[in-house]
């Protein structure tokens, strides 16, 4: 990692609480990758274990739809972190991740990051804490929207959301499943 790279990473909001030594150890779990326009980092449903810090250009988060259509969910620019849920909890990607018009990213290797966590590395845990706070914000916003829906008398809207959300357990209705998903974010 060049000094220019470390200088850039020290200004990334999610890493700003790390000391230079902690950042230095974390960079050993990273490598730099160049992406051509439209090149994919991850497909929907593929196993996700790494996270990406955008260095240059932009990265698109997309949801493929029926008939080959795509909905662009977000365009992430320099200094933002993408795919961090996979870093914390390896799981299938819920969105497609790819470069827009070319991009440079730092890949945080999930396996090497896991070793840092297993050895109680303080910097790795500061990053985890920062990721958790980001997830808190996102979940709280979602919970608020869900509770507004629960208190709404617009049952037609509920049914519209519920259509097609079959519960794999088959015990309760999809709306009950939604309530369970957000219920314990206290």
């Amino acid at each position: 990692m060049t000094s220019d790279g470390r200088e850039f990473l020290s200004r990334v909001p999610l890493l700003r609480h790390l000391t230079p030594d902690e950042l230095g150890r974390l960079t050993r779990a990273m490598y730099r990758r160049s992406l051509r326009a439209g090149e994919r980092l991850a497909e929907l449903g593929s196993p996700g274990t790494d996270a990406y810090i955008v260095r240059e250009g932009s990265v698109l988060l997309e949801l493929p739809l029926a008939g080959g259509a795509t909905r662009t969910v977000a365009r992430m620019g320099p200094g933002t972190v993408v795919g961090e849920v996979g870093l914390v909890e390896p799981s299938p990607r819920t969105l497609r991740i790819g470069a827009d018009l070319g991009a440079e990213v730092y890949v945080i290797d999930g396996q090497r990051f896991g070793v840092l966590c297993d050895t109680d590395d303080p910097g790795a845990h500061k990053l985890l804490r920062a990721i958790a706070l980001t997830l808190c914000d996102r979940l709280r916003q979602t919970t608020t929207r869900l509770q507004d829906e629960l208190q709404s008398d617009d049952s037609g809207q509920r049914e519209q959301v519920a259509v097609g959300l079959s519960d794999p357990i088959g015990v309760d209705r999809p709306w009950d499943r939604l309530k369970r998903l957000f219920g314990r974010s206290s």
Partner: protein
Amino acid sequence: MPVRDDTLASLPFFYRLSVEQRRALAQVLDERHLVAGEVIFAEGERASACAFITAGTVHAEVHAGPGRPRERINSMGAGEIFGEVALLDGGRRSATCVAGDDGAVVALLSRADFTLLFEAGSPFAFAMVRLITRQLARRMQNAANVWSEAVRVADSDPPKG
């Protein structure tokens, strides 16, 4: 009231701690004995602590609208943790937590004490951060899946008119 060391030793979450770490933690935990129906955390209040259940049952309930009883969304027993997100983020409680029919005993850990443990490099605090982050990641994953399904449903069945 501090928590007894042997009480912590009996809970799965504290197995990995050394005896010294567990004793230090026991000193900062605050044990509360709750009668049936007693509220531990109230929905909407500012969160400043999490709770470990050492005995009994705790129910999580949410406000379901004016004039309607709270809806129960989860029940937890001995060894489980709740309100843990408060250790990282002092937002407002999203559910009311009440003791079950036989009451409950909980050990409260304040955000301030947790922050001190984290900054001192406590393996317990690090383990808590890993646990909390994983739980949040799972919830976010579930939320993203539900949202994706909703978008696909809306896309395949656009509003009429």
